[in-house]
């Protein structure tokens, strides 16, 4: 059952010198190793998830704090995601969920190639940096209670 998905993704081509995205390896349905070997910080990750510009995850997802007004109903609830998925599985779903589900509505937060008509301000950059991805992974891993 464990598929070995494209083992190594080279993302450097489309984003110019100095801006090459950290490479990663997909194993099964996960990216087991932290991007760029970076350590995540859960508190910063929580801020990214709530931030209406950076992560803006609650536009689509229910978060862990039920008192937050106007949360989205589009993706699965993030409460309990740390019990459902390993950090590596969360990482792949954030980096590029289309690897697992080509029709996915979940945006790719760490991908720059194969996108069309990206607004100039965002062109050639991933939606979140490697550090921000690691911060969010660290935060989501703590959300063990549904």
């Amino acid at each position, binding site marked *: 059952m464990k598929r070995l998905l494209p083992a190594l993704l080279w993302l450097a081509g489309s984003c110019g010198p100095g801006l090459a995205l950290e490479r990663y390896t997909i194993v099964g349905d996960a990216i087991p190793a932290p991007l760029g070997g970076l350590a995540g910080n859960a508190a910063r990750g929580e801020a990214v998830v709530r931030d209406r510009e950076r992560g803006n995850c*609650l*536009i*689509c997802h229910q978060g862990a704090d039920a008192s937050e*007004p*106007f*949360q*989205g*109903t*589009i993706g699965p609830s993030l409460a309990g995601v740390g019990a459902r998925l390993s950090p590596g599985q969360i990482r792949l779903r954030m980096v590029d969920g*289309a690897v697992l589900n080509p029709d996915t*509505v979940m*945006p*790719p937060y760490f*991908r720059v190639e194969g*996108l*069309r*008509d*990206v*607004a*100039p*301000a*965002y062109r050639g*950059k991933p*939606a979140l940096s490697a550090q921000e991805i690691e911060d969010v992974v660290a935060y989501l891993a703590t959300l063990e209670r549904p």
Partner: protein
Amino acid sequence: MLRLAVLLLLAAAPASAEIVSGSSFLSPEMRRQQEDETRNPGFFWVEQGQELFSRRPEAGGEACIGCHAAPQRSLRGAAATYPKLVSERLMNLEGRIEQCRVERQKQPAFGYESPELLALTAYIASLSRGLPMDVAIDGPARPFYEAGRAFFERRQGQLNLSCRHCHDGLVGQKLRGDTISRGASTGYPAYRLEWNSVGSLHRRLRACSLGVRATQFEAGGPEYLALELYLAGRARGLPVETPAMRR
């Protein structure tokens, strides 16, 4: 009697029976406000448009009403047929008004999203309130319609979503405080609380493009005109509701 009612319903049914107006997703209170001409702020723009329609340009020349007498009758239904091809150019109602302004009134164009053009567009569209959307999508209009459909269906922007993902796939779901509708164009120009003003359909489209971090195309430009034709074709048979109210 029942048979007649069913026939009438069928005749009024939109081309794709599932497409419903954005008004169906309004709160009951906002719906009542929309329907009440004294409480729907959009009618302020309609009144201004009506006034502009009869006003002669300061530099001299005809008022709109000089060519279009009795607009309640002569222009009733006109808005429901736009966008349409006019000498091989795809034109929406705004474009048509600007064409009259420049070529027939010999005045400088108002400009997209200017208060004057919004008021005139809202006024003329309001003359078709309740009539079914009725755009031509075949013959020479077909390639434009297909271009609009392709735009609607392709993923775009840094968030890599298509219009269809939201407006077919996620209808009724909550995106933060908004309830996603079918993306029908039937209420525009519309009064949006977020704008605190009446705005054009293309302004709304620019907001959706920004939402997925995609290129915002020029209001009145070819990309959104083709998209407008596709949206109007999708909404065929739904009543014109301008000026609608939206969150």
